[in-house]
Every structure is written in structure tokens, then in C-alpha cells.
């Protein structure tokens, strides 16, 4: 069995895996970029001395 010989329909198989890889990569990028943005916003607000409701209870 040669895994690099995908037969006459290789284009469909490669396209399927490429689309899947692209969508999964986009999801991972979305989660990581969103996290960085929210973290940066939180840090910025905390630097301004703004605390959120319930912050004291969280620490206890």
C-alpha cells in the first residue's frame, strides 16, 4: 500500500484534507487571537485601576 498514490481521484482527497486543515487552522487562530485581544483589553482596564464586580470574592 503506497500512501502517496491516491489513485485517479487524488485531487478530491487532497482537496478534502486541505479544506479541513484550513478550517481547523482558522478555528485555532480565531481562538488564540481572540484570547490575546481579550487578555490585552483586561490588562489595559486593570492598569487603569478598574476592577470588576466580584473580583474580591474570586480571590478569597
Amino acid at each position, binding site marked *: 500500500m503506497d500512501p502517496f498514490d491516491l*489513485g485517479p*481521484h487524488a485531487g478530491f*482527497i487532497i482537496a*478534502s484534507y486541505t479544506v*479541513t486543515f484550513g478550517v481547523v487552522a482558522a478555528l485555532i487562530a480565531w481562538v488564540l487571537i481572540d484570547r490575546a485581544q481579550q487578555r490585552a483589553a*483586561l490588562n489595559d482596564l486593570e492598569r487603569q485601576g478598574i476592577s470588576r464586580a466580584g473580583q474580591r470574592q474570586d480571590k478569597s
Partner: protein
Amino acid sequence: MALWDYANPTRFLRLVDIVLPWLIAACALAFAIGLYKSFFMAPEDYQQGDTVRIMFIHVPAAWLAMMCYSVMAISALGTLVWKHPLADVSAKAAAPLGAAFTFISLITGSLWGKPMWGTYWVWDARLTSVLVLFIMYLGLMALWRTMEDPIKAGKAAAVLTLVGAFNLPIIKFSVDWWNTLHQPASVIRLDGPTIHPDILIPLLVMALAFTLLFFTLHLAAMRNEIFRRRVRSMRMKAAASAHPAGATATAQPAE
């Protein structure tokens, strides 16, 4: 530990920080094993040849598309019935993931259909009901974006999610109820799977890998959503202190 112990977002975030690295490792390992089995161990199908390898991503994506909506439906019950503070966070975080898995399922199914059926698309019951599921996901994502208050948006989305849940049994049983080009179920059947273990095992490993990927991304997206609500709450608090007379800031449960 009951589900209510994690109603406190800070406690939930601590749990996510502990669980996430293990989930990522398990997911990467499952994908490595699954892809190796899919390309190096699974034989060609006697009828479909190598195109059967599309099944190793198409079927798990289709399962995830439905499982993701099931998670959202349970979360919708959590919002409307049990009023769990993280239920709408869970539903909102799951919607883009469900849309993505449904998109993968539609595209890979179409790319599998062309060489096997001779067409990329037919308006049969299975394909159309999955397309409806995709549109439902997009509609729910749009609904969350149209309302500024996440609590109100969560309740409206929960109602719409439960209405849309009627599509799930239609998707599942469409191949039994109507004449469709799509093949009937061959794995989850009362009389057992009809696929040979050489192909079934790689499929199940890939399904596990996709499931772990979903839970990894879902927890990470929930964490982001909690952060987003904290940012919103803090900005409202800042605005209230700047303009105390006109402000009506209220704290959000998922802060």
C-alpha cells in the same frame, strides 16, 4: 463535584487551565494515530478505492456538526430552565465550532460525492437538512451579534436553538424516512457496524480526535467569552463612574 460548582466563572477558568493542556496533548496524539491509520494502514475500499479516505474526515465532521448542536441545545435548557450562569457562554462558544464542522462536512461530502455519485450536490433530504443546520448556526451567530446585552441575546438564542433542535432527528433519520442518494447509517446501527474493522478503527480514532478537538476549542472559546464579558462589565463600570447620573450598568453573571 456537581455542575453547579462550576457556576462560578473563576472556578471554571481554573479548571480550564488545568484540563486544557491535557486535552491538547490527547487531541494531537489522537490525530497523529488517526491520520497514520487512515493513510498507512486502512486499505482501499473495493468499490470506492482511495476516496474512502475522505470518510475519515467527512463522517467525524458530520457527527461533530450534530453533537455540537446537541451541546448547544443542552446549554439552551441550562439557560432557560436551570439558569446556569455559564450555559449561554457554552452555547455562544459552540456555535462557530458547529458551523465550522458543518461546513467541513458539507464540503468534504461534496468532494466525495463528485467521483462517487457523479455530482457535487443534490437536493436530497440528508444534504438539505445538513445545509439547514449550517444556516441555523449562522443565524444563531448573527442573533448573538445583533443584541448588545449577552444575557438577553443568550435567552433569545436559547429559544431559537431549541426550535432548531427539531432538525437533529430529521438529519439522523432522513436516510431512512426518504429515498436519498446518501447512504444509510453504517456505523451507529442496532445490528452493529457494517464497515470492516480495518476501516472502522481508523474512522473511530479520527472521530475521537475530532471530538477532543471540539472540547479543546470549546473550553478555550468559553474562556475567551468569559474574558469578553469581564471586559464589557469593567468598561460599563468605568463608564458609570465617569457619568454616574446616566449610567445603568449591571453586573453580568458570567463575569
